[in-house]
């Protein structure tokens, strides 16, 4: 007879078989049997966070930077409710997470027991699927299935809720089964005919554009390689969503920059005026489309996505190709080579006028800003950070707000999985714990959280985690003492009524760093910025970098409320050029 294992042991045996090497968690009454077993499974290392939301975001950072699912272990009640924000964040941005939560013993479920909550009920709308395991004999199978659901198709978070009595009970362990299909749900639904149609559209187009998103990153590094191959083989311009940055080199001439609300002038105008839009792994989010009725009115639209429900959800498309980006791109390239081996040459003529137009939009230089010698402009800070770190294969996380958009605009990414940001949910407090997770996955790499002072305070307690595990993450705070994006909206749309967007009584971040037993650095002037950044990079410990920036700088360009792509607000250089040149400020 084979050996019997307790539920707690089975949890770890499943993780072993799923190649889990790190879990992020926080103990509590209802998961103590699982924590009791931790020491017996040496290949699995536990990272103790300071708040369960931190565990969730750390697992997201781990997953996004490594391509593996992130694993979370939390207790019942508050442990589970605290992780809800991170699960929702992962659901919106399609990040594979497996969350194991403890639950009160089965006989107490429904009695309002201590630290009881309806975890599967609460997390139902923010997970791909969840399970309450009420029979020890279902446990192993359920956990294996959880990993499969999280990582297949469009990835996302799942949760397995395990009552405490189940953790103690014993049964035989079941190895994962190799399932071919998940409940009959396969992921590639396209045929050669669609690929032929795509190539036909591509060869007829004179104003094409690739619009790529996080789906390319989620499809794995090979997808990014194939994307590059396709973009070079066609000579078409390419723009990317916030989540897609890094799948195509940010400094390449064919790359028009990010599109959307704070995207570049050239990217948004090209989206508006194109005659063929090829959406690869993006979802026509409202921050991307602007006014939906006037979104790219003259184009044929192609949508490549693994999730059939993304097709025609926000924007009606002419050709839908449901499948994994990698598979679709590989078929497209194969057919392109067979049928149109001289595509690039024959197409150059056809798209030359289009490229001329794009160059004109480019010459507007929409990311320019007015430099200063007295105060650090936030854009300047990101530019310097980029220049000083670009040779280091660095990993960047962000919080949410102006700093996030400036980072997306001014930091150039050349590889996938290097950029971790909360896009769909827009979770302030994401970046610091995400950086913890990234550094756990990549101990030797440079990991920087580009932060705002308001966001970072939401999860600042995770500095303690970074210090405990000697994770030398760099928290680069663009400190303008405002919730900058809120302030910007209030300035532009609410008659400068800065209601509650200024943070009085901020902590002294340098002293705060010292209190956490890490390193605090402050930069106040543009002159000292480079030296201070270099000091940060040379520090082999966690650093909180307090970069005191211009308090009232706004993030431009911007598509304002309910406007289409071709009605952008450009920066102050465009609006008030006379006034500002009069003061003799230099343009950077």
């Amino acid at each position: 007879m084979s050996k019997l294992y307790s539920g707690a042991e089975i949890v770890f045996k499943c993780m072993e078989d799923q190649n889990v090497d790190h879990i992020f968690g926080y103990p509590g009454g209802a998961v103590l049997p699982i924590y009791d077993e931790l020491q017996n499974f040496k290949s699995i290392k536990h990272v103790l966070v300071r708040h369960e939301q931190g565990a969730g975001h750390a697992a997201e950072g781990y997953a996004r930077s490594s391509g593996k699912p992130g694993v979370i272990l939390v207790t019942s009640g508050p442990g589970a409710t605290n992780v809800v924000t991170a699960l929702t964040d992962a659901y919106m941005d399609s990040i594979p997470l497996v969350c194991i939560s403890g639950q009160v013993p089965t006989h107490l479920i429904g009695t309002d027991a201590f630290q009881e909550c309806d975890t599967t009920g609460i997390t139902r709308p923010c997970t791909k699927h969840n399970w309450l395991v009420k029979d020890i004999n279902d446990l192993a199978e359920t956990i294996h299935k959880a990993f499969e659901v999280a990582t297949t198709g469009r990835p996302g978070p799942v949760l397995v809720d395990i009552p405490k009595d189940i953790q103690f009970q014993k049964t035989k362990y079941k190895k994962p089964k190799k399932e071919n299909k998940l409940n009959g749900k396969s992921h590639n639904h396209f045929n050669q005919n669609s690929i032929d149609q795509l190539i036909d559209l591509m060869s007829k187009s004179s104003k094409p554009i690739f619009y790529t998103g996080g789906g390319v990153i989620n499809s794995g590094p090979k997808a990014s390689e194939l994307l590059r191959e396709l973009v070079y083989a066609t000579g078409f311009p390419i723009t990317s969503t916030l989540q897609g940055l890094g799948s195509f080199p940010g400094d390449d001439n064919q790359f028009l920059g990010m599109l959307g609300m704070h995207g570049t002038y050239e990217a948004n105008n090209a989206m508006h005026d194109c005659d063929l839009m090829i959406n690869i792994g993006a979802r026509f989010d409202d921050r991307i489309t602007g006014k939906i009725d006037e979104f790219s009115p003259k184009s044929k639209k192609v949508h490549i996505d693994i999730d059939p429900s993304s097709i025609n959800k926000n924007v009606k498309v002419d050709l839908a190709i449901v499948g994994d980006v990698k598979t679709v791109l590989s078929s497209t390239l194969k057919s392109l080579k067979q049928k149109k081996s001289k595509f690039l040459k024959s197409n150059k003529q056809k798209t030359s006028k289009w490229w001329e137009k794009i160059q004109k939009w480019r010459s507007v230089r929409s990311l320019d800003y007015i430099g200063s010698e007295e105060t650090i402009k936030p854009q300047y800070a990101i530019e310097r950070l980029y220049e000083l770190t670009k040779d280091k294969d660095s990993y960047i996380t962000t919080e949410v707000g102006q700093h996030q958009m400036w980072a997306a605009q001014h930091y150039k990414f050349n590889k996938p999985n290097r950029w971790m940001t909360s896009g769909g949910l827009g979770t302030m407090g994401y970046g610091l714990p995400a950086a913890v997770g990234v550094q756990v996955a990549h101990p030797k790499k440079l990991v920087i959280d580009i932060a705002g002072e308001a966001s970072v305070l939401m999860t600042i307690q995770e500095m303690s985690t970074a210090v405990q595990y000697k994770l030398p993450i760099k928290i680069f705070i663009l400190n303008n003492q405002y919730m900058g994006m809120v302030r910007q909206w209030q300035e532009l749309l609410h008659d400068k009524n800065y209601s509650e967007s200024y943070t009085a009584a901020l902590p002294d971040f340098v002293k705060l760093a010292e209190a956490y037993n890490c390193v605090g650095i402050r930069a106040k002037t543009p002159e000292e910025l480079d030296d201070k950044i270099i000091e940060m990079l040379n520090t082999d410990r966690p650093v909180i970098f307090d970069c005191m920036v211009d308090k009232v700088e706004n993030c431009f360009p911007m598509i304002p409320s309910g406007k289409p792509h071709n009605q952008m607000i450009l920066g102050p250089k465009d609006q008030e050029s006379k006034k500002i040149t009069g003061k003799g400020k230099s343009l950077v």
Partner: protein
Amino acid sequence: MPSSKSAYSFSNKKEKFDTHIIVVWVDNEAGVLARVVGLFSGRGYNIESLAVAQVDEKLKISRITIVTTGTPQVINQIKLQLRKLVPVHKVADFKREDKAVIFKEMALFKIVGTNNKLEGALKACKKYNPILLDKTKKSNVIQITALRREIDKMSKDLKKFGLVSVSRTGAVAMTRGADIFK
């Protein structure tokens, strides 16, 4: 329309709403109905009626029939979102006008009144195969099976005969002929 102060764009397009009957085959497991219904409420879809019961004891499959309204785009989304749920096996969709499909609802009417009124009520129901389930001197319980709008009408018409209570199911559906739902 709020135009200037929102980060979101508003559409002025008014599209026609169609009534559809969505049939969903699911694993009969804990929480499955909550998943389906939660999807509707969470994404702002309508539910006009709902009928659910296990139809295959061995495979533990339940059949959920949902009557809903929406624009063609919304109906399409409902189907695609439902298909993504892990316990969902298949989803079928019919327009209410579809002649190839039978839709039926059942209603129970309780009538209290004189013999005259009780007889009058039974007569009024004649078109819808009434079954007298319970009879006393003062009351009747009548069962009819009919379409939604017919039951709506009967609920009104029977008032004058002393209707005191109505209980009705959601619609269930089945294709005509030898074909089955794919």
